[in-house]
């Protein structure tokens, strides 16, 4: 009999999955000795083999046990992106470990038919595959091993990982101690409870004052003590007033570049690329940890998935335009009904699986279809028959106070019908809306996607061997630009089948409490990305990464016949702004009139002048940004090829 799990990579993956599941089940209190587990029509062994992801399917004859099991599988889906689905058949519902079932079917087929079988399985998903497969799969499974039983019993064993090296966790922060404390308190317990004590969290902070530096050092030491997870600072300044590690790293890198006799413009670009601030910090981190798997943790996220509590199970829906839509899984609001709950998410484990077993975990799709804010992954289209291969980046869906951009807040602030309390929250950059998921979404891999970091982003060390760079710009497009580089370097994107919770802070980069600032910076985002994207797409294939960066830089610097900001876009923005101002200034709501006043003050003459002037201003800014980016890419090409990243 073929044992598909004898394939080494499949076997390792099964081991990692089983350990992750065992730890989660232990945390959920699901134990083999429980009465409801023992009293069913299966031996507890069968049930746990299924729950640990070793057995592809399990038929449940007992309705009561099926209901209990559904609750457990639901929790596993949210905590681990386990992707367990239920198929109703005439005799009894069948629970399916979809990833394993897909892999098993592929493995069980003779090599010649494998591609076709896989195609069929991927296209239809196992949930709909015919019963032949299901019965075939049910009869073959890997038995549980003793260490998996031990993990179920709560034994703390070292985590099994698919990555060749331990990943590096990076918490990027402006360095306000209160925010850092909050973030550490959110992330560390979850990481610890899932048994990842061997990981190191790098606190990449920009704290500029001695007092903050001292506090952050104390915080790092305290966190290391309390949670057993090493927290180290990658900082600008140390508590003793000396230059911090990040600062030193930057200085060394710049010194090396200095020896290359770069033109002055490029030296300036290098300084800007690595300067304190979000992009500079990201660039320093990318350069410093090249070759390692990175888990980029956003300060305003917490590793919990909001389950909105609905129990009706729905698959991805295909709409009339052939897109597969996740929207059915999602509700925008979590009322106070109490039905919603939060699941701690084992995100290091999920990222590990998604990066290093992408083809086993993910359904391949051609692209993400942009939605209102272009930053969610709710719609994908173009199911593809062949798996994509290892992913370069892993994203999570975002729930909680979703990281929508300032335009949405502007719209709500402008809405006379909302309550004054809500308006006050929006005006502060907050978000009184909550998003939860009615069902954990499937894991998908994508060739084309728009990257907004949002919560936690995983980068593959393989992809970062030649590190990516973040556009050092005041326009809030850094995270998008990183994803764009990755995409045009042919890396696959993966969206894990669960969500992480996001909170809009008043002071973080996502909710900066200066709503009106979106007016210029926000609106340049898409034109700029479009320009760089068009240029990258037009380039011939260049395998060598530094050469490619140079070529992109060159093509961005070349004089262009067309505008970066389409005139129609500037014209429409101008018209809308004017109309918004007119409306807000006439409003009966005092807060709205104040908002209009601020808005007008921010915009100055640009709304009063003809839209052509507004367009000219946007175009000037955009051109400056593109020229600066071209210089950055040139410099980055030097850093990647000669200055020795990764030490």
């Amino acid at each position, binding site marked *: 009999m073929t044992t598909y799990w004898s394939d080494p990579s499949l076997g390792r993956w099964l081991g990692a999955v089983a350990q992750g599941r065992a730890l989660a089940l232990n945390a959920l209190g699901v134990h083999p000795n429980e009465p409801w587990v023992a009293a069913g029509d299966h031996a507890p062994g069968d049930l746990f083999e299924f729950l640990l992801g070793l057995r592809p399917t399990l038929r449940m004859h007992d309705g009561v046990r099926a209901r209990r099991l559904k609750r457990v599988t639901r929790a596993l889906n949210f905590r681990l992106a386990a992707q367990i689905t239920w198929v109703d058949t005439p005799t009894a519902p069948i629970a399916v470990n979809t990833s394993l079932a897909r892999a098993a079917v592929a493995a069980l087929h003779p090599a010649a038919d494998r591609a076709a079988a896989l195609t069929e399985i991927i296209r239809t998903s196992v949930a709909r595959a015919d019963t032949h497969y299901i019965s075939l799969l049910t009869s073959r499974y890997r038995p549980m091993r003793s260490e998996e039983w031990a993990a179920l019993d709560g034994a703390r064993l070292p985590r099994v990982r698919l990555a060749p090296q331990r990943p590096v966790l990076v918490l990027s922060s402006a360095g306000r101690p209160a925010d850092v404390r909050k973030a550490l308190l959110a992330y560390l317990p979850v990481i610890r409870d899932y048994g990842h004590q061997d990981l190191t969290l790098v606190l990449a902070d920009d704290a500029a004052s001695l007092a903050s530096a001292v506090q952050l050092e104390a915080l790092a030491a305290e966190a290391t003590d309390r949670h057993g997870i090493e927290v180290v600072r990658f900082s600008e300044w140390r508590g003793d007033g000396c230059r911090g590690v990040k600062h030193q790293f930057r200085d060394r890198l710049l010194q090396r570049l200095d020896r290359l006799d770069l033109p002055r413009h490029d030296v300036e670009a290098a300084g800007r690329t690595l300067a304190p601030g979000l992009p500079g910090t990201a660039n320093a981190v990318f350069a410093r940890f090249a070759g390692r798997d990175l888990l980029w943790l956003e300060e305003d996220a917490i590793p919990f998935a909001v389950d909105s509590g609905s129990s009706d199970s729905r698959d991805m829906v295909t709409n009339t335009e052939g897109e597969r839509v996740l929207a059915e899984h999602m509700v925008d609001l979590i009322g106070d009904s109490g039905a919603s709950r939060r699941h701690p998410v084992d995100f290091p484990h999920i990222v590990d699986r998604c990066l290093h077993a992408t083809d086993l975990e993910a359904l391949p799709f051609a692209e993400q*279809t942009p939605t209102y804010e272009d930053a969610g992954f709710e719609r994908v289209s173009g199911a593809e028959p062949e798996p994509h291969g290892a992913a370069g980046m892993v994203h999570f869906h975002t729930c909680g106070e979703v990281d929508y951009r300032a335009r949405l807040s502007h*719209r709500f602030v402008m809405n006379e*019908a*909302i309550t004054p309390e*809500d308006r006050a929250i929006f005006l502060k950059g907050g978000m009184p809306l909550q998003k939860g998921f009615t069902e954990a979404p499937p894991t998908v891999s994508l060739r084309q996607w728009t990257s907004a970091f949002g919560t936690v982003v995983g980068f593959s060390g393989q992809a970062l061997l030649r590190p990516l760079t973040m556009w050092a710009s005041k326009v809030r497009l850094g995270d998008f630009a990183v994803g764009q580089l990755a995409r045009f370097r042919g890396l696959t994107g993966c969206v894990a089948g669960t969500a992480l919770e996001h909170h809009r802070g008043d002071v973080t980069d996502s909710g900066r409490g200066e709503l009106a600032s979106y007016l210029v910076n926000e609106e340049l985002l898409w034109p700029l990305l479009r320009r760089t994207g068009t240029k990258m797409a037009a380039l011939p294939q260049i395998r060598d990464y530094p050469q490619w960066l140079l070529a992109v830089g060159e093509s961005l610097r070349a004089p262009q016949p067309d505008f970066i900001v389409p005139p129609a876009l500037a014209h429409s923005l101008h018209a*809308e702004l004017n109309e918004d101002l007119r409306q807000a200034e006439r409003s009966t709501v005092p807060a709205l009139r104040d908002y209009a006043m601020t808005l007008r003050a921010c915009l100055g003459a640009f709304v009063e002048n003809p839209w052509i002037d507004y367009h000219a201003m946007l175009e000037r800014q955009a051109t400056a940004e593109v020229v600066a980016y071209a210089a950055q890419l040139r410099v980055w090409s030097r850093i990647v090829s000669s200055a020795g990243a990764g030490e």
Partner: protein
Amino acid sequence: MPLYSTAEIYSSATTGRDEMPIPEGLLSMWANAGQEAVQLTARQAWLLADPREDSYRCLSVIGITAEGVLARPAFGWLLPQRPLARTPHPLVSRAYTAVQQASVMLAQRVDIHQAVLQLATANAALAQWERTSGPSDDALVAACSGAARAVRPEADPRALAEIQGWFGRHGDSLLDRTVRRVFQATGPLPDTGPRAYDDSYLATRVGVNREVLFRAGGALAVQVYQAATLAHQHGEPAWTVLQRRCDQWTLSAASAHVLRLLASTARTAASRVHRTLLQEPPPLPTARIIYGLLVWSTLDTAEIQRAKLLSDGESEVGDAVLLELMAQIKAYAHEFLDGVPALHVLGSPPSRPVPHPATGGRR
């Protein structure tokens, strides 16, 4: 019966005209003429043919008979609805003359700019008359209406715009009222049943139903829609100006895109507008864009928001999508119409109540 051209009449009656007084009652005779051919005496015919008396050239001669000349009103709309007073007030006379001269020029496609100036003269005269002696003469207004209607798309766009009152919209000019009354004079509004009101222009997007839209300005929207339909079907100058303006407008593609999204009930319509704007949206017929802009400009978005919030109780992201689309199309309409209300542009004041479209008037 042989037909003679006006030129032949000119050449056959060229003597002694200076001695001939203008026949009294000619104007009142017009009143009864309608579209029928009328019998004129030789003297009247002579007057008719006087090249200096352009104001009378609005009859075209179709034949010469023993009694004189057989003529037909060339521009029936120039005829007053009722006989004028025998001795009209000089101001009215001046206005009349100016309008008639303008009409002839417009109808014959000559010297359009001069025609516009003539209309402006009429406007001034009539405004003065109204200030001193009460409401203006309906016949004259009808004549103005006709003049405005005589303008065809191939005419000078600037003149068109001026006639429309497009540029002359400051204050309540006769030209404005003229254009407005064109639509009132066209006869009763068509049946306002469900078929007469195509609410596809007012999209039934996710979350906003027709009831809500109707409450948010439905009656006005219907009226605007009907006025637009009339203008469109009859090729009214108001419409042709809008059409030309829309064709040359930077935002017509953007408007088309927003309208398409608003009209879509698909969830995919949530696409962020500006992003998609960057990828050339497929074109929409100009007329549809104009309808959309006119109709959406009448809606009270705050009312929609309120209704939406009342029905759902909570705001959500979908609301913002809709709000943004509505705000956009309203902003574009504001610019497209130069801030002038849609009905004003189309020439009808909001007057008659319009039945509910969903119930076909049987409320």
